[in-house]
């Protein structure tokens, strides 16, 4: 009884706060709820955040997998979906006991760890529960939230106050959007039908915590004398871990929802320390028979990813064309062509990420930074190995000197926290000039917008033909000073391809 009373409000608070974190764009949520992301197990492990990891391990060893019922947003989301099931509220319950699919659980975990060590970020990102949730929230919920905000913004504009401002809503990456949607459907269906199936067969974090909670001090256990084998508890168990016939509860799968405790009419289930019982059940937890089990179906094979990517780019191109048409012609305004991202030999990763390798090894693709980026610079990558991990591009904005939002929200240490001062000295790439696009040469007019806006003064305007008087001035980039922020690329008047663009650096340097 008490367990549920504590769990449900706590879980809702955590869930709402984390969801807010992913839909908010103002930075307010990051300020108040940013720590919740850092409490997530996998990010904490990647960030070598020892305090959190130790605390979570101890928590699990003492009370069991309460993490999965309170802190993990994906877990709480499944509980909510299961609760929406018409029979979810039914007293009789709709679940049945099923033996542990240990073989499947551990295979997934081993694959996951191998991928993590090998730096196959896309695979890690697919399975990591917090990242899955982040992807759903940022891809599916944030657009709705932003639409609501833009409504408010139009009201506030009409009433002449500055409380709300409109923001752009755009598809950052179609493949990632599709993956988020597919993951959501699969997990929702699993939760609808079988409660915590995902958590107890696929989720690598669930497997690790399950291995710990198997030995947890406090746990749910049977008082065999009192049990009348009515099966009510088993039918209420979302984790399908109560074998009422044998009077055992599989602690490695139990997520401590406490539903069974409420169901038992005979006081036969208790949440306490079993070792204190005189009648310690001799039988160890049932060694679950290995079944072929569920398909790890939420992973689209690689070839599909590529196809999705191709479809994605095609679609992006057509939306760009649409946007062109949409630009209102007020008579007085010239049409502005949308910018197109140049082909970068090395992708750009955010300041603080140290190097492409460090980034790939630590990022779980949760999309928090992407959702938070106020300058529309970050978007999920479409590269095969780094799929869903963010990358930078400057068509919509540039990495502004005052902003360090992504580094402050990243829970995994993939983007290490940096200050404003550090930022101006971290070289994440360098600008490359493209003669064929440069306006002073193509249009014969003065420009220098790149030099004017370079925050580190790395660009000087020099005459194209030094000997000729009145020669057009072209930018000269001092690569050693350039930090790769993209102000030049974004503000370059050449369209659709800028006459100056940023080439990423695999390893960041301090200038």
């Amino acid at each position, binding site marked *: 009884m008490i367990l549920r009373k504590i769990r449900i409000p706590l879980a809702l608070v955590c869930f709402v706060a984390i969801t807010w974190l992913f839909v908010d764009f*103002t*930075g307010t949520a990051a300020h108040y709820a940013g720590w919740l992301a850092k409490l997530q197990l996998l990010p904490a492990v990647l960030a070598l955040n020892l305090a959190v990891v130790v605390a979570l391990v101890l928590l699990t060893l003492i009370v069991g997998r309460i993490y999965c019922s309170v802190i993990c947003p994906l877990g709480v989301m499944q509980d909510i979906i299961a609760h929406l099931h018409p029979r979810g509220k039914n007293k009789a319950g709709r679940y049945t006991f099923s033996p542990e699919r240990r073989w499947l659980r551990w295979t997934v975990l081993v694959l996951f760890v191998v991928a993590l060590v090998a730096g196959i970020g896309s695979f890690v990102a697919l399975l990591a529960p917090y990242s899955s949730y982040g992807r759903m929230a940022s891809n599916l919920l944030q657009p709705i939230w932003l639409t609501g905000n833009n409504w408010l913004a139009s009201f506030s*504009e009409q009433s002449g106050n*500055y409380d709300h*401002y*409109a923001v752009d809503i755009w598809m950052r990456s179609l493949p990632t959007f599709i993956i988020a949607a597919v993951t959501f459907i699969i997990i929702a269906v699993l939760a609808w039908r079988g409660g915590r199936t995902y958590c107890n067969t696929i989720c690598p974090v669930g497997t690790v915590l399950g291995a710990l909670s198997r030995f947890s001090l406090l746990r749910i256990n049977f008082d065999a004398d009192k049990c009348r084998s009515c099966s009510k508890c088993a039918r209420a168990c979302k984790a399908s871990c109560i074998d009422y016939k044998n009077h055992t509860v599989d602690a490695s799968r139990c997520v401590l929802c406490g539903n069974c405790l409420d169901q038992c009419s005979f006081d036969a289930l208790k949440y306490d320390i079993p070792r204190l019982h005189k009648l310690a059940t001799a039988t160890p937890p049932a060694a679950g028979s290995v079944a072929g089990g569920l398909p790890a179906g939420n992973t689209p094979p690689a070839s599909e990813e590529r196809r999705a990517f191709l479809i994605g780019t095609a679609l992006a191109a057509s939306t760009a064309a649409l946007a062109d048409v949409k630009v209102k012609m007020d008579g*007085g*305004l*010239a*049409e*502005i062509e949308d910018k197109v991202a140049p082909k970068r030999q090395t992708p750009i990763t955010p300041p603080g990420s140290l190097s492409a390798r460090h980034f790939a090894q630590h990022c779980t693709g949760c999309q928090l930074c992407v959702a938070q980026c*106020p300058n529309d610079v970050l978007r999920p990558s479409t590269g095969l190995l780094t799929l869903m991990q963010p990358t930078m591009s400057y068509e919509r*904005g540039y990495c*502004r*000197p*005052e*902003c*360090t*939002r992504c580094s402050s929200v990243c829970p995994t240490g993939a983007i290490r926290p940096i200050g*404003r001062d550090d930022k101006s000295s971290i070289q994440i790439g360098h600008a490359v000039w493209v003669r064929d696009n440069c*306006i002073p040469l193509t*249009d014969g*007019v*003065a*420009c*220098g*917008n790149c030099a*004017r*806006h370079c925050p580190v003064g790395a660009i000087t305007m020099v005459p194209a033909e030094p000997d000729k008087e009145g020669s057009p001035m072209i930018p000269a980039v001092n690569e050693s000073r350039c930090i790769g922020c993209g102000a030049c690329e974004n*503000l370059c*008047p050449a369209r659709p391809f800028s006459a100056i663009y940023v080439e990423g650096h695999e390893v960041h340097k301090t200038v």
Partner: protein
Amino acid sequence: MNKPLSRRNFLKYMAAGTAAVAPSAALLTACNPSAKGAAGVSPTGNSAKAMTMRHNPNTGDNVSLLGYGMMRLPQLPEGTPEDPETGPFDQEMINRQVDYAIEHGVNYFDTSPVYCRGLSERCTGIALKRHPRDKYFIATKLSNFDNSLWGLEASQKMFENSLHELQTDYIDYLLLHSTGGGGRDPETGEQLSGLDVCQRRFIDNGLTDWLVEQKQKGRIRNLGFSWHGDYRAFELLLRLHDEGRYHWDFVQIELNYLDWFYANEINGANVDAVKLYGELEKRGIPAVIMEPLLGGRLASVSDNVAAELKQRDPDATIASWAFRFAGSPTGVLTVLSGMTYMEHLVENVQTYSPLQPITEEDHEFLMHIAEEIFGLKEVPCTGCEYCMPCPYGIDIPGIFAHYNRCIKEGYVSQSERDPHYAEARRAFLVGYDRSVPRLRQASHCIGCNQCTSHCPQQIRIPKELQRIDAYVESLRQYQAGRI
């Protein structure tokens, strides 16, 4: 406020100044020959290299126009262990700079018990002790800000301690520090106005009476005050002067070409320097000037302002304009500069050796620069759209209209200290995005100048757009990540 009249006043002050400079300069050259061609700075066509001096009518002191502010002392390189006596401050460098200053005619050193973690007086004392006491004037303050120090005894102790730290038995210029600042009642914790605090720190406790006694004993040679904040405190102290209760030998105020007219606009709590200076001038009280660079803002200006200043005088540094402005009124006794680095000292010594007073044209020009820096200048755009369409898609009249509207509605604020800064900033930025799509904002203006010839108002459009863009950029950079 009446600008033409104020300008006339300014020029009046200056005209007298030019006349006064020449003889005193000659005098100093005579008594300080080492000032010539020192420090390896090659003087450009400036052979009379003596510091401009000003005369203090109360004591007859000849005070150098450049005063050394000891509140930003040089520090030891990071990682160097602190000195047990002078903490993180680089006494060797302080000595060198003080030596250079004295050698080049600077004789006014301004410190306070609170500067530099409370070590400024000690460092200043050590550096000055190495010179004959009659070669320089020491200014320090009664910085009894903390309400635990409002009693007479605590303040007396503070004064005695200043003498001790400065290793001297008299102070040449003693100031009631920062009159006009607010505070809290030591007993009730109630917020008090600057006027009340001034009363309680200096008047009600009998401190000023005691200081007058010290002056009679010769332990203080000049008694004055510095003022920030609540104007009623300034008025109170001047009223006491007028009534003959106290005599202020000098008053320290903030003065620079931005504050001359715009102090009040920058921060509603401030009073334009022209008014403050006028009050002192009327009474013949010499003015000591602080913040001639407005906290460095007038030394690091936006690129287009810098270009304009350089265009007018390519040889003059950006900061020198501000120093010339602050030093030009003849009622100014000295202009304080907190010179951390030798380069600043060398540069400022040069600017005042001798002072070339601001001319009428210069004054006009600097007022225009002030407007530009302050951004008060509305763009005289009528929205005729002759300039449109801009081939690069900029919404020129839209940007100007937004900017002008924000000026009118008071949403253009240059000072982050302005209590309404955050609100004004948000209104400006949110409104900017509303009225002009980002792609059509001023940051995209490339300065091709194709529009300029079309403008019937002769607005230099790219220049104005770039000025607005620089302002927007300053707003955006103010607070990370928030609009």
